[in-house]
């Protein structure tokens, strides 16, 4: 019983991480779109889009794909 609810609490915390990361990704995507529509400078656009894409990639790789499990293992936590 108590073990059950402990597991459920663990899950909802993990699920919240998912929402937070998704929110960041969504904001970055919209920012990309707005910048692309509004900005005229080619160079600035390339730089800003690259930064946004790398940030999004990093967030997915770290939080969604759990890259750290490669060296820490999953069972460790």
């Amino acid at each position, binding site marked *: 019983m108590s073990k059950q609810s402990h597991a459920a609490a663990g899950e909802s915390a993990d699920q919240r991480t998912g929402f937070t990361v998704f929110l960041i990704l969504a904001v970055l995507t919209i920012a990309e779109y707005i910048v692309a529509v509004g900005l005229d400078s080619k160079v600035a656009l*390339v730089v800003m889009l690259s930064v946004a894409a790398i940030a999004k990639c990093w967030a997915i790789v770290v939080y969604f794909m759990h890259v750290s499990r490669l060296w820490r293992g999953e069972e460790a936590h």
Partner: protein
Amino acid sequence: MAVATHDNAHADPTAHAWERVRINRLGLWLFLFSDAGLFALFAASRFYLSGTARDPHLNQALGLAITSLLLLSSLTAYRAETAFVHGNTARGRAMLLATIVMGLMFAGGVAFEWATAEFPVAELYGTAFYSMTGMHAFHVITGILFLAVVWARSGDGHFSGGPKVWPITATVMYWHFVDVVWVFFYPTLYLLK
């Protein structure tokens, strides 16, 4: 016989299963890394051939819509895996299904775009656009097939608990990878000018 007396660390079946997961995980990461190289070469070719030039006829609304859809499907994929890890099979299955549906909608969006796009495949931008979205869509479809297989197999508690979740994790990682590719392809194809 020989397997049964496998060395002492493996006498514990759970430890053995976790070791298998570690091995599989590295293999999958290497595979995805390698696959990413293929996409990177296509993106590099796009810049080599036509710089950042983009065709003005692109359907921006559709592009933003399918991009958001794929992003959202990454969230449901994450939720599916997390649910399975915590033994919540019902939610996991629902989320897998949601991911599949959004994947199908994404593929449909790409198909619609192909059918209505006003630039020919023979032009430089068309060359980049159709080949890059095509290769990506191929990965989306294979991803959907994998998702469908694990969804169909997940009913009887097959993937519940510890190392047994691995097939779900692997499929979901593949799906995230497909999203990562799109994270780069979307600005490359739609937003640069």
